[in-house]
């Protein structure tokens, strides 16, 4: 009987961490792409949603500890060989900068309103310089630039956390970190596709926002597929313990979930939907402007991202560093020692 040390909390945490990192990355890109303010709406909403999934995910992570009262110990040290130690610091820095960035993107009226609250006044006075003159624009650019490597770091970390363990052959391949990174960015993009489709400014951009998000997401989904294919090839041709672990998704307990859930509904179907939607935008035809399609493709990508992490977190814990298992399966008579 397998016992899973890491469960749903870790699955959701890896998903949320990736989602926040992805939203931050897309927001940062939107600041720099297409000239000043071309993608203001994406940059703004990306900045708004980036910190909160990561904060919630980190909370879940602490909740999953069985000695949670000691969690502050993570921040009394930096263990350079431990992905979790580096990741914790990354999450802390990411949360700080992305919260500040979200604040910077608040409209002036909201900031003025916050300033008028008696309880918040002292805090807001301290922050008033951030929107004086053109400080706001400058700071947004700086934080966007800072956010790009930081969110790449958080996205990569969610994969390296699992990938850096030789004892779990299903995780221990050089491709897992990239798969999780691109999946993270893809879920962040998908969250923005869903969210911005409900914003007022969305229709006004005449499909320009949608075009950017779809292009990004199509690119990221393709990258994921281009990693899954060599992931399987590599694993199939690797040492017996890695090869053996591949049976989890090739005829094992996670086969249906992986191929139908992750690859089918999470990658191929949204890829088709997004290609259908971007086609008229690319060739200047009458756009579909279908919110149902936007929301459907976005939600499918999000569900696929969650499932991907479910398959890897649970499946990986069923794989062991045990070349002997493959020999036993081959049915050969093992010589007496």
């Amino acid at each position, binding site marked *: 009987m397998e016992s899973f*040390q*890491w469960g749903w909390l870790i699955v959701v945490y890896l998903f949320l961490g990736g989602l926040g990192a992805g939203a931050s990355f897309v927001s940062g890109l939107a600041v720099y792409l297409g000239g000043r303010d071309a993608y203001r709406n994406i940059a703004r909403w990306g900045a708004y949603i980036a910190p909160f999934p990561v904060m919630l995910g980190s909370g879940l992570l602490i909740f*999953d*500890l*069985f*000695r*949670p009262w*000691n*969690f502050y*110990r*993570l921040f*009394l*040290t930096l*263990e350079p*060989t*431990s*992905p*979790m*130690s580096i990741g*914790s610091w990354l999450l802390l820095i990411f949360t700080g900068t992305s919260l500040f960035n979200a604040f910077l993107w608040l409209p002036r009226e909201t900031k003025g309103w916050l300033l008028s609250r008696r309880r918040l006044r002292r805090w807001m006075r301290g922050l008033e310089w951030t929107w004086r003159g053109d400080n706001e624009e400058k700071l947004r650019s700086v934080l966007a630039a800072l956010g790009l490597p930081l969110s790449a770091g958080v996205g990569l970390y969610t994969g390296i956390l699992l990938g*850096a*363990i*030789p*004892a*779990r052959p299903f995780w221990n391949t050089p491709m897992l970190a990239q798969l999780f990174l691109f999946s993270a960015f893809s879920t962040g993009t998908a969250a923005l596709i869903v969210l911005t489709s409900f914003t007022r400014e969305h229709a006004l951009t005449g499909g320009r926002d949608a075009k950017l998000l779809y292009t990004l997401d199509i690119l990221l989904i393709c990258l994921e597929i281009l990693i899954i294919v060599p992931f399987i090839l590599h694993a199939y041709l690797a040492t017996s313990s890695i090869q053996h672990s591949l049976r989890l998704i090739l005829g094992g307990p996670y086969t249906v979930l992986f191929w139908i859930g992750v690859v089918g509904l999470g990658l191929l179907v949204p890829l088709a939907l997004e290609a259908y939607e971007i086609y008229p935008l690319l060739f200047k035809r009458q756009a579909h402007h279908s919110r149902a399609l936007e929301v459907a493709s976005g939600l499918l990508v999000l569900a696929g991202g969650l499932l991907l992490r479910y398959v890897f977190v649970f499946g990986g*814990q069923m794989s*062991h*560093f*045990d*070349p002997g298992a493959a020999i036993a399966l081959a049915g050969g*008579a*093992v*010589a*007496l*020692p």
Partner: protein
Amino acid sequence: MKQGQGRIKRYAMVVEVKKCFNCKGCVVACRAENNVPLPISRNWIEESGIRGRYPFLGQTFEPAACNHCERPPCERVCPTGATYRTPEGIVMVDNRKCIGCKYCIQACPYQARSVNRRDKVIEKCTFCIHRLEEGRIPACVETCMGGARHFGDLNDPDSEVARLLAHKDSYVKKSEAGTRPAFYYVF
């Protein structure tokens, strides 16, 4: 440390596989000595299953526990430095630093660690360090009625473990994991 140069010990366990007959006395002794709650255990016996072809049949038993690796993967991944290795080569957990993330459980190729839900600590073999400090040997070694288990200092060439490893063929578990265990098996 070169022999005779210092007093640093390098503890190791050596098991004579052919002398183990699966009585599980060591498992019971460990539970009693270290107050380990069910259902977990710090040590266990791995059974090879019946091998060979009739009438030439046989099976072996390998007592196993934490291998006290020279390069412990659990120590490498520990985010707070709670898992550490003593100068004598014993891999220990400092409970004041442990946050309970279970990363070490994932990282151990031997599945030698488990969560003690009663005391909220990571449970693993300590080579009975509290007994070593009193000059006694680990409980599992003391109780072993087949005389299969040996414990001692590898840096002392006259120790039982050093002599066994010098004169017999030995192996460690999953040597390809690169962990360099201090838990040896001899035939």
